[in-house]
C-alpha cells in the first residue's frame, strides 16, 4: 500500500513539474522571441491591474482553448480525429517515467529511488514512447480529411523515420562509455572524475555524440528548423483541422517534447542531477577542501541542478527556433540519412576504438 502511495506521489510530482514547465514555456517562448525580435511581447492579460510580465497569459490561453468550439470537419474520421491529440500527449509524457530526478531519498529507514520507474532498459523505453508519439500527428493528419493535414502527417512520419535511427545510434557511444542502458546508472557514472579534476560527463566523453543527439533531438521536437510537419507558411500542418483544447494538446505536446529532449540532454550529456564534486555526503573538491552537507540538502541540490540544466536546454531550443529558416522536405532527409546517420556510425566506431585502446 505504501509502495503504491509513494509511486502515486512521484507521478504527481513529475507530471506537475513537466506540465507546469510546459505552460511556462509557452510564456517563455513568447517573451523570449519578443526580446530577440526587438518588441515587447505578451503583456495584455491582467488581474486587478497586475500584469506580472504577461504571466497571466498562460491562464488566459488555457481558458480560451478550453472554451473554444471543438470543431470536427465533416470529412474527418471522428474517432481517430478525437483520439490523435491524446495519443501524442500521452506518449510524450510517458517518456518522463524513467528520467532520474535524483539518486535515492532516505526517509525513515526507507529508500525511495527518485524516478517513477526503475528500468534497466530506460532509454529504450523513451525511444518507444517517442516513436509512438509520432502516431498522434500521423493519425491526426490522416483522419482530418484535408490535403494539407495529410501532407503534414506524411512529413511527420518521414521526419521520424529519417531521424530516429540517427538519434538512437548517436547514443550508442554513451552506452559504450558508461556500460549501461539504465539512465540512473549512466548518471551515477558521470559523477566520476577524469584525471581527478574533470567530471566525466557525456559532453566530455562524447562531444560528437552530443551534437548529433542535439540536432536529431531538435528534429524530433518538430520545431524550427525542422518544423516541416507544421510548416505553417506552406501547409499549416497536421493539426490544421483542430481547434480548442485538442489543438492545445498538440501545442503542449511540442513543449513537453522540448522538455523531454532537454531532460535527456541533461541526463545523458551533462551529468543529470550530478553537480561537480558533490558526493552523497557533501562537496569534496579536487584540491582537498571538503564541505559536508546532510542527505536532504544533497538531494535538494541535485534536483535543483537537474532543473537548471533542463531549463537551460529549453532556452537553447527556444532560441534556435527564432534564428533559423526551415529546411525543405528533401534537404531534411538528406541531412538525416547522409550526414547525421553516417556521423553517428563513425562516432560509434571511434568510441569503440578509443575504449579498446584504453583497455
Amino acid at each position, binding site marked *: 500500500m505504501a509502495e503504491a502511495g509513494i509511486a502515486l506521489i512521484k507521478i504527481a510530482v513529475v507530471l506537475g513539474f513537466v506540465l507546469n514547465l510546459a505552460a511556462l514555456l509557452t510564456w517563455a517562448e513568447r517573451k523570449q*522571441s519578443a526580446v*530577440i*525580435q*526587438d*518588441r515587447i511581447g505578451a503583456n495584455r492579460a491582467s488581474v486587478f491591474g497586475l500584469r506580472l510580465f504577461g504571466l497571466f497569459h498562460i491562464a488566459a490561453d488555457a481558458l480560451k482553448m478550453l472554451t473554444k468550439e471543438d470543431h470536427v470537419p465533416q470529412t474527418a474520421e471522428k474517432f481517430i480525429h478525437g483520439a490523435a491529440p491524446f495519443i501524442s500527449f500521452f506518449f510524450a509524457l510517458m517518456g518522463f517515467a524513467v528520467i532520474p530526478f535524483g539518486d535515492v531519498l532516505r526517509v525513515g529507514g526507507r529508500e525511495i529511488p527518485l524516478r517513477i520507474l526503475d528500468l534497466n532498459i530506460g532509454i529504450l523505453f523513451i525511444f518507444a514512447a517517442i516513436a509512438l508519439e509520432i502516431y498522434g500527428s500521423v493519425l491526426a493528419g490522416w483522419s482530418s480529411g484535408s*490535403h*494539407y493535414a*495529410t*501532407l503534414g502527417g*506524411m*512529413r511527420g512520419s518521414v521526419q521520424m523515420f529519417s531521424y530516429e535511427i540517427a538519434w538512437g545510434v548517436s547514443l550508442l557511444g554513451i552506452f559504450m562509455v558508461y556500460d549501461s542502458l539504465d539512465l540512473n546508472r549512466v548518471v551515477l557514472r558521470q559523477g566520476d572524475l577524469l584525471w581527478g579534476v574533470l567530471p566525466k560527463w557525456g559532453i566530455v566523453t562524447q562531444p560528437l555524440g552530443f551534437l548529433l543527439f542535439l540536432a536529431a533531438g531538435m528534429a524530433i521536437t518538430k520545431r*524550427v*528548423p525542422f*518544423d*516541416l510537419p507544421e*510548416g*505553417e*507558411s*506552406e*501547409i*499549416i500542418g497536421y493539426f490544421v483541422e483542430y481547434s480548442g483544447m485538442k489543438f492545445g494538446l498538440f501545442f503542449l505536446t511540442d513543449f513537453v517534447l522540448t522538455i523531454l529532449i532537454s531532460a535527456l540532454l541533461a541526463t545523458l550529456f551533462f551529468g543529470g542531477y550530478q553537480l561537480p564534486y558533490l558526493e552523497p555526503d557533501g562537496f569534496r573538491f579536487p584540491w582537498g577542501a571538503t564541505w559536508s552537507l546532510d542527505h536532504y540538502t544533497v538531494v535538494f541540490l541535485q534536483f535543483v541542478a537537474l532543473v537548471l540544466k533542463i531549463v537551460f536546454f529549453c532556452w537553447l531550443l527556444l532560441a534556435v*527556433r*527564432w*534564428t*533559423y*529558416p*526551415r*529546411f*525543405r*522536405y*528533401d*534537404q531534411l532527409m538528406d541531412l538525416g540519412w547522409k550526414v547525421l546517420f553516417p556521423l553517428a556510425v563513425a562516432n560509434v566506431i571511434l568510441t569503440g576504438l578509443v575504449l579498446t585502446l584504453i583497455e
Partner: protein
Amino acid sequence: MAEETTILESSEMILNMGPQHPSTHGVLRVKLKLDGEKVLDAECIIGYLHRGMEKIGENRTYPKYAPYLDRMDYVAAVTNNLAFLEAVEKLLGLECPPRAKYARTMLAEFQRIASHLLWLATHALDIGAMTIFLYCFREREEILKLFEEIFGARLTCNAFRVGGLTEDLPAGWLEQAKAFTDIFPSRVDDYEGILTENRIWLQRTKEVGVISAANAIDIGLTGPALRASGVKWDIRKAMPYESYADMDFEVPVGTRGDTYDRYLVRMQEMRQANRIIRQCVEGLPGGDFKAKTPRVIKPPLGEVYHSIEGPKGEIGYYIVSDGSTIPYRVRVRPPSFMNLQALAQLARGHYVADVVALIGTLDIVLGEIDR
C-alpha cells in the same frame, strides 16, 4: 521493359493553395498537381481582388483618379501614383520644378525601400525565418512615419499632384529623412547577417526557380526579377525620369537568376536607394514645389504610354485622352501581373515548400494583378 508494378496504389493529388493561404500574399490561388510533395503542374487563378480599376479611370477626372491607384500596389502607393501623374504631365506637356523632381525621386526611393522591406519580411517568413520579419517591419515603420508626416497617410498616401507636390516638405522632415539614411545601411547589414551566409537559407534559395535571361525577357519580367537573371535593364538609367539623371547610383545585377540572386539584387537595391535618398536630401534645390497648372486638368487629344521603375518592376500607364477632363481609356501595365506569369513555369519539378518561396521571390501584390 517489364511492366511497372506497385504494391500500393499511388495517385496524383490536387492541392488548392489559396485564395485563403498565409503565403500566397493576398488572394492568389494556385492549383497544384502533386506527386507526394513534388509539383507536377501549377496553375495560377487570379481575379479575387478585381475592382475594375481601369474602368473606374474612365469615369473620374485625372486628379480624382490618382487616389484609386494607391489601392493597386498598396505597398508601393507612391510609385503607382508617380507613374500615372508623370503620364498625365507628359500628355499635358508639363515640366515640374526641380524641387518637386528631387522630392519625388526621394520619396519614390523611400517607397522602394519600404516595398523591398515588406518583400524581405514576408519572403523570409515564408521560408520559416520569423525574426527577420519583425526587423524589417521596424524599419518600414520609420518610413511610414515619414510618409505620414508629408501625406497624412501611411499606406495609400496619394502622394503627389499633377505638376509637383501637394505642399512643400514639412519643417524638420529632411533631418529625419537624413537620420534614417544614416542608420539604414547598418540595418541592412543586420538582415544580411541573419540570412546571406545562413546555410539553411542558401539551401532553400540557391538553384531554386532559375530563370535564364532569355526566358526572363520572353515572360516579360521586369525589375529585380529580371536583373537577377543578368539583364541590366533599369528604366531609371535607360530613360531617366524625375531627377535620376543627376543621381549617382549603380544597378545591381545577378548572374544565375535563382531565388538567391533575386534576394541579393533586392538587398543591393535597398542600399542603392538609400544612396539616392541621401543625394536628394543633400542636393534638394529651393524654389517652387509645384508647376503652374491649370485649375482644370484637360489634356489635349492624344495618347501616351509612360512607365517608371517601380519597386517590383516596370509600372506603366497607357492613357487615351479625348480632350475632356476624363480619360477615354486607361490601361495599366502592372509589374506583378507579368512577374506572376513565371510562377507556373518555375514551380514545375520543385517541392511544395518551394512554391511559397517562389511566390515570395517574385514579389507580387494581388491588388495590382487583379486591379
